[in-house]
């Protein structure tokens, strides 16, 4: 089925509403069969991009390409894209089967063809038994799956998902994430998803595009983005991070040493000229609690300011003498100690753990 996947190109897409720029010169390629997520806070332009791809929003500048062919001027009904709307937009006066049959009906398929395809689509989302129900008689999760079946039944070039899971509660969301991922593998189509939920983006996507203030900040595989954020915003938005600012003290082929406060921090990264200011992102879970005289590339000492129990581990806020406040999360099995406010601790991390990031553009 992978032949069904199409490649989408977004080239210099810009959308202005009066003096407000919702999307600012965004270029992005989505490969055949790829699951791409547009991730960003509200107002970052992610939904506008999706609506421009769908054809509901006319771009101020730039173009949309499908397999290299320009489709910018096509109206939505001519693009043959499936779309799952926020809140699903199921037709409340039609049964589940009628909803799913709708795109086939507008394409003039015969009743028999429609019935077969609708049955297959409903089976795909395991709702075969609910064909005659009205949307309002279904639970939120079931409605979401009807919306998926309806968006896939006409074999669209592309599936667009606008916050498909945001209306569901947390547990159901986790279940449906798995299902959505499995569905993507099964149908082999290109999916473009929009969300503000970073966990959803990390777990579902082949690739994530992070947006802020209408601009594309960074695109890449989830692990790449998490491990190598390009800017402070990406590091902060995707997971939690400590930020350490300082000046390069010495540099060699393996990396550099950053002077931050009274600390000297070893960083394994492409070298930078001595004296330049750098910003480091250090994930809390990459900080370890050092016992006794245990050594690490970087070691700081401090006292616990506050702590909380997370079930899987502990979250600590530690006031250090050299770097100010640091956040660390420790797996429960490692924390063979009873945390208490004011308790002195030694924290350590390897030279690979802290990565240099750029300050956000204004």
């Amino acid at each position: 089925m992978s032949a069904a996947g199409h490649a989408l190109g977004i080239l210099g897409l810009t959308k202005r509403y009066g003096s407000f720029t919702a999307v600012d010169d965004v270029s992005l390629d989505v490969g055949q069969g790829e699951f791409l997520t547009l991730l960003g806070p509200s107002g970052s332009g992610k939904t506008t991009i999706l609506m421009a791809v769908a054809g509901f929003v006319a771009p101020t500048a730039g173009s949309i390409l499908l397999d290299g062919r320009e489709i910018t001027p096509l109206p939505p009904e001519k693009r043959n894209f499936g779309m799952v709307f926020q809140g699903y937009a199921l037709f409340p006066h039609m049964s589940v089967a009628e909803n799913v049959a709708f795109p086939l009906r507008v394409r003039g398929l015969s009743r028999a063809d429609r019935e077969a395809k609708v049955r297959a689509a409903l089976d795909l989302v395991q709702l075969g038994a609910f064909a005659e129900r009205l949307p309002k008689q279904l639970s939120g999760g079931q409605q979401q799956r009807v919306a998926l079946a309806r968006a896939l039944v006409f074999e669209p070039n592309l599936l667009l998902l606008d916050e498909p899971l945001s209306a569901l509660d947390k547990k159901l969301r986790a279940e449906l994430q798995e299902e959505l991922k499995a569905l993507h593998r099964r149908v082999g189509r290109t999916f473009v998803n929009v969300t503000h939920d970073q966990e959803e983006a990390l777990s579902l996507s082949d690739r994530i595009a992070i947006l802020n203030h209408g601009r594309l900040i960074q695109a890449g595989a989830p692990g790449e983005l998490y491990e190598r954020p390009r800017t402070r915003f990406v590091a902060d938005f995707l997971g939690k991070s400590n930020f350490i600012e300082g000046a390069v003290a010495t540099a060699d082929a393996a990396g550099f040493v950053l002077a931050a406060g009274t600390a000297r921090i070893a960083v394994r990264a492409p070298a930078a000229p001595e004296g330049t200011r750098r910003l480091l992102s250090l994930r809390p879970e990459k900080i370890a609690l050092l016992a006794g005289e245990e050594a690490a590339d970087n070691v700081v000492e401090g006292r616990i300011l506050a702590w909380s129990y997370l079930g899987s581990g502990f979250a600590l806020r530690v006031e250090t003498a050299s770097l100010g406040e640091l956040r660390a999360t420790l797996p429960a099995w490692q924390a063979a100690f009873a945390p208490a406010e004011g308790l002195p601790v030694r924290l350590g991390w390897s030279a690979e753990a802290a990565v240099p990031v750029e300050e956000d553009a204004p």
Partner: protein
Amino acid sequence: MDGIHPPGPAARGLAWATALYLVLPILIVLPVALTDQRFLSLPQDGVSFRHFETVLTSPEWLGSIWQSFTIAVAATVLSVVAGTLCAIGCWRISRRATELVRVLMLLPLIIPSIVYAIGLYRYFGPLGLLDRFAGVVIAHGVTGIPYVVITVSTALAAFDPRLEQAARGMGASLSQTLRWVILPRIAPGIVSGAIFAFIHSWDELVMVLFIASRNVFTLPRRIWDGINENLDPAMAAVAVLLILFTTGLLMADRALRRRSEGG
């Protein structure tokens, strides 16, 4: 407010008095219509249906009823088609771009019909529409459009615009989206508008006084002549029939709304 803070006795008394003032005079025509006398009065020795009989066997009254009915049906079709399409168009196109259209739609509700009536009297002359079925249908149909625009706009305000986007996104053309998605959803609003447009035409007198004379003699016109010339109990019988008819239409509208709200 669910009776949390019930009104005081003075307010309650005035409200009751007003409700009686609104309803009682209308109800009074019922016993008058059932009088056994030849003149307008309450029944003296018993109840009689002879005045209803007079009306329902009179070719003049029946002719006017039929004429009013056909005019109202034709005018309603005109109002409903034009009004519904207009409301949908205004709903979909931005508010600012259609502001003028919306203001225009309010004019027939604001400008007194006497002004429109004398205007039509002069305007229809050269067009040969005076005292013609078509002329009255146009006048009633055009002035009925606002009622439909209002009820359909209200229905559309509750319509999720994403449903229309979903339909277009799945490949539906404009006319398919209209027929299969938008119209079924706003049908109760359209029927409501149709009922109001129908009542508007059915009751309309002022325009008819100016643009119709002999060929077109609607029911309100005949009642008007009756009130001005001979006040007899047959008039009361007509009034009762009209009240029943209007109330029936309103009840149908209410039931319809309740069903669409419940379902």
